[in-house]
């Protein structure tokens, strides 16, 4: 597995974990605040494992923190979907669902990988992602079917996020079919439609990001950049 691809997986997990953690303390229901924080913790944990692995391959004193905190946005390889701002709770749920529906078959496949390190990370993460997928699927259905207002909000969320779904799967062609099946089935239960004729936006893997990632990294990397070379 290439270093670039491992960083891609790690960046995906970190950026989404970071975005979700912006909800901590601000969730719509106390119980769901706790639930989403758990997902953040899982994702950041996955990112750390993947960065640590990448760091051993890169050498040169690389660590999980140099990879997370000292790369510029054009070196980040995450898909664009995860860097978008949270929007409302429905957008956050929809994004988590679209992402988990990709991560689940991905980690399933990587659990059989010949790469021992990746294999171990994938096996551990798969258990977490199975729950993320279940939790987010149920919330998509709940909000899709709930009230007229929640339906409208979920429809907006789908329309806002759909342009970034091609980018999500661009470097995981093996997962595409399973992803589509899952999304179609949950959307059917949620009475939501897949938008037609959408202009797709991509480029995350190649480091072509939105300004949202720049802002996010400015905030996230602030201390490490201002006081270089010290311990925290």
């Amino acid at each position: 597995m290439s270093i670039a691809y491992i960083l891609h997986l790690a960046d995906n997990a970190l950026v989404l974990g970071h975005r979700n953690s912006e909800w901590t303390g601000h969730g719509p229901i106390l119980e769901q605040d706790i639930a989403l924080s758990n997902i953040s913790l899982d994702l950041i944990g996955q990112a750390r494992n993947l960065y640590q692995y990448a760091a051993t391959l890169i050498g040169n004193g690389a660590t999980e923190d140099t990879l997370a905190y000292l790369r510029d946005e054009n070196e980040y390889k995450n898909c664009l979907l995860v860097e978008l701002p949270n929007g409302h709770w429905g957008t956050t749920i929809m994004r988590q669902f679209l992402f988990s529906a990709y991560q689940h078959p991905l980690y399933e496949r990587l659990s059989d990988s010949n790469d021992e390190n990746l294999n171990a990370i994938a096996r551990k993460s798969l258990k977490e992602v199975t729950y993320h997928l279940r939790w987010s699927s149920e919330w998509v259905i709940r909000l899709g079917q709930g009230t007229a207002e929640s339906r409208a909000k979920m429809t907006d969320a789908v329309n806002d996020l759909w342009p970034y779904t091609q980018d999500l799967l661009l470097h995981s062609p093996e997962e595409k079919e399973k992803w589509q099946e899952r999304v179609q089935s949950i959307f059917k239960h949620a009475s939501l439609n897949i938008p037609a004729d959408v202009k797709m936006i991509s480029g995350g893997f190649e480091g072509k990001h939105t300004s949202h990632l720049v802002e996010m990294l400015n905030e996230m990397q602030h201390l490490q950049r201002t006081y270089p070379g010290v311990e925290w």
Partner: protein
Amino acid sequence: MPSEEVIFQDKVDREIRIEPKDWMPADYRKTLIRQISQHAHSEIVGMLPEGHWITRAPTLKRKATLIAKVQDEAGHGLYLYAAAETLGITRDEMVDQLHAGKAKYSSIFNYPTLTWADIGAIGWLVDGAAIMNQVPLTRTSYGPYARAMVRICKEESFHQRQGFEILLVLSRGSKEQKAMCQDAINRWWWPSVMMFGPNDESSPHTAQSMKWKVKRFTNDELRQRFIDICADQVKVLGMQLPDPDLKWNEETQHYDFGPINWEEFWQVVNGNGPCNKERMTARIKAHEEGQWVREAALAFAGKMSSRAGVRG
């Protein structure tokens, strides 16, 4: 036949826990609802100042532990709301009281978190003071409250250690980091000392609460214990507590300390702290923006159960 009041007090005196359906004096119920809901609100509002640094935590490990900590606070708020609910008030009512400005929460959370060192200082001092208050509450007379506190204290133990460790790393770091560390201690020390509440002579409810064993030690007893412990711990950091009068007293076997600025305390309690408004605005916003989510979830649950009803 002894009166219900006598039986009640006898149970309290014999350390038999009072449970939700047991007879209890109306004032006991009222005191508990006030105290437990204040405590719950403090946990929830307390998520905000620290949550502010989740997105800026300087390493991935720090980020993860901070999320876990703030999430624990949500859990603690939840346990406490649930304990209060056994007394006949709903969580919604308590939250409404908070948002309407009718319920109090710990004033400490109305101070801003300006630097990363504040996260350390909160863990060491604010959580330290909280633990000092909370450990005796694991033996409080009301069963559901005591049980919630057992769970909370078990989980709290990592918070204070985490905070102290953040400061320890800073205290051994660069010149800027050391300054950051001392500055945070300077700003959080007195508000933490005030967390134990007014002096005993200005705390009118203390005697009754002690008799009911809702409270186990007085404000001043707990405050003194806290100061004694911190005055020694700060030496490990090689930092100073911002109190020129702090001095070991051989005779009392305690530290003497300088006068507390009670005017500032009451200012912040009464809503004029640096962040009172900001905190309430954030909580109200989260609640209002969550309205459609809660409505949708309930509507969905209603649809599911009526469908199940048709099938059944």
